[in-house]
């Protein structure tokens, strides 16, 4: 897994995950519906072709999430997920792709003895986390967390929204490390049937950015993944589509292994789609 010295040596393992092929970034909420299940699901996602695991640490007020992930977070919290349990889970995970911690700032801030992000970042690095995505922490408020990440060699990924102004974009590109999270549409997370019309524009204005660009918010099929990559993305981020599968499995009481099979299959479809999206000329 991740190792602080990788990052400090230059490009992080997170950025490196986008090197060869369009990357598949797969999100699940840790502890949904149990830590043990999450372990199996993450393995399955990686087996299906996932290049980066975005592992959600559930927070009680997930303002950036749509209904699907809200419910996943509720299931995870009800099942006893806490930051400590999360870190144990990460520590136990036996996958060879980088793991990004996706959570809200208050959990990072409260962890440990003293308020501030320092202790959680240290613990996360120790457990094997490669970086953070914190949807309620805009670049403007990110100083302390960015500082702690720098210290521990972790990436801090910012989300570029369709509304982001040029001026803000510049500041974010200055700060973002690992990859750029391109929010493909307005609103919150949640699986959709179509790629947003805004996505090509969003990517176009990042054309000159060195960092890899992964598009998220609403992608749920191989075809969408193909389209997005065809529009210039270096990767796709998928969450709600997996969580739907987890939710259905939890509801139906399906065995974890069956749910894991379905997750693996979807990851495979997505990865295949993404790869298929690479424009011919550049893809040799």
């Amino acid at each position, binding site marked *: 897994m991740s190792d602080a010295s990788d990052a400090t040596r230059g490009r992080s393992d997170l950025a490196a995950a986008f090197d060869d092929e369009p990357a598949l970034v797969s999100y699940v909420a840790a502890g949904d519906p149990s830590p043990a299940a999450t372990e199996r699901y993450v393995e399955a996602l990686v087996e299906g072709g996932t290049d980066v695991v975005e592992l959600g640490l559930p927070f009680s007020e997930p303002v950036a999430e749509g209904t699907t992930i*809200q419910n996943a977070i509720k299931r995870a919290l009800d099942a006893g997920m806490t930051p400590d349990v999360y870190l144990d889970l990460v520590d136990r995970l036996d996958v060879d792709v980088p793991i990004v911690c996706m959570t809200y700032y208050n*959990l990072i801030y409260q962890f440990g003895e003293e308020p501030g992000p320092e202790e959680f970042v240290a613990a996360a690095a120790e457990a094997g986390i490669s970086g953070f995505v914190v949807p309620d922490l805009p670049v403007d*408020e990110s100083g302390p967390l960015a500082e702690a990440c720098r210290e521990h060699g972790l990436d801090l990924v910012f989300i570029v929204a369709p509304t982001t102004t040029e001026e803000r974009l510049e*500041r974010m590109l200055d700060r973002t490390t690992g990859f750029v999270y391109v929010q493909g549409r307005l609103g*919150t997370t949640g699986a959709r049937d179509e790629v947003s019309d805004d996505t090509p524009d969003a990517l176009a204005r990042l054309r000159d950015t060195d960092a890899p660009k992964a598009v998220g918010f609403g992608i749920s099929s191989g075809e969408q993944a193909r389209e997005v990559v065809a529009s210039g993305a270096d990767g796709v981020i998928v969450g709600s589509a997996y969580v739907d599968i987890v939710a259905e499995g939890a509801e139906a009481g399906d065995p974890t292994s069956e749910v894991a099979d379905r997750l693996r299959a979807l990851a495979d479809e997505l990865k295949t789609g993404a790869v298929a999206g690479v424009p011919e000329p550049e893809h040799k």
Partner: protein
Amino acid sequence: MSTQDEATDGTQRDGTFGDYGGQYVPEVLMPAVEELTDAYERYVLGNEDGFVDDFRARIREFGGRPTPLSHAENLSAQYGTDVYLKREDLLHGGAHKLNNALGQVLLAKYMGKERIVAETGAGQHGTATAMACAYLDMPCEIYMGRTDVNRQRPNVFRMRLHDADVNPVTVGSGTLKEAINETMRDWATNVEDTHYVIGSIVGPHPFPSMVRDFQAIISEELREQARDQIGRLPEAVVACAGGGSNTMGAFGAFVGSASLPGHPEGTHEPAPEVDLLAVEAGGSSLGVDEDEGYAPNSASLSTGTEGVLHGARTKLLQTDDGQIVESHSVSAGLDYAGVGPELAHLVDEGRVQPVNVDDDAALEAFHRLSREEGIIPALETSHAVAYLEHYEGDGPVVVNVSGRGDKDLDTVIEESAAKDIDGAPTMEVFEE
């Protein structure tokens, strides 16, 4: 002490209050928050296009300002100290909420926005927003927890009568916290033409400052009225604190932080000699139940810890891990796990004294004011009134009557009977 990279001049205009405040919102909203900050600075602080003049005229002619400062003769006699009541219960809609709702909806119009969204708990802010939108001809959508929809029917009716859409939020416990989350999601989806009218001095900058400025018309008037009617500043001002908008409304001109152009001379100079008491909901007891993720109170100023919620760093009721807990109060409008960042700062500075009274004391005070002064206070306000039992100063003391209690009749009657509250009248007239 700013947490912002872009802190400009070290003053509050950077959106922080000591360690508190800031702008902790998803990036998709940040441009809107910046646009709003700009509009706040230009229209509100700068009175551009005569915005503030327009606001002042409308809150007077539509809202019914100034609200009076009433001398509570019977309570004064009982407590042996002069008690005055600042009567926000007489503002259109029945609570101080319209000061802010009208200000923000009007600002949204000046900004060219075409749609309003707002959250509501007890329904007071939703009603005020719906009123302002009907008056200013703006489409309006209100998010309200399903539990609150069912238990606050009259306010839901009122919002619908004003032609606002009311969206019940079914996730979680279906109360205020969930309604705020859902409104932020709507805003994130429709941010380009939509303004989110937040209901208290919470949320990301510029909301805490802007809502304070609109509400501080309360203390601006209060200072003038005290001068005319009492001939001096009060010794103390007492206000209940949920999010804290009526609180900073009542304190703002005394602290000196509030600023709305056109205030009468001498009404905004800091007046450190005036004691400012923020009365929180003590609920049934203080503290947080970590295992249940529940606080039987809403006393975040008195007992909360620093954290980040709904866009700002402030004092919160949370678990050690940082999960926000469900708060509780007999008063729906105080039932919130956070509090405005400026209040958190003023408490840390020692300028505002946080106190709290429990559910029973609030119910008793509800009956006391109704019986002794002919004013039925909101249950929120009743907390401030209850504090008079503990007030030991020489007076004069002003209580901010943030709203009227018509909305609370059913709750009060039920709870008073169940808890055998002192001084509650029997309703035997209905027995046939």
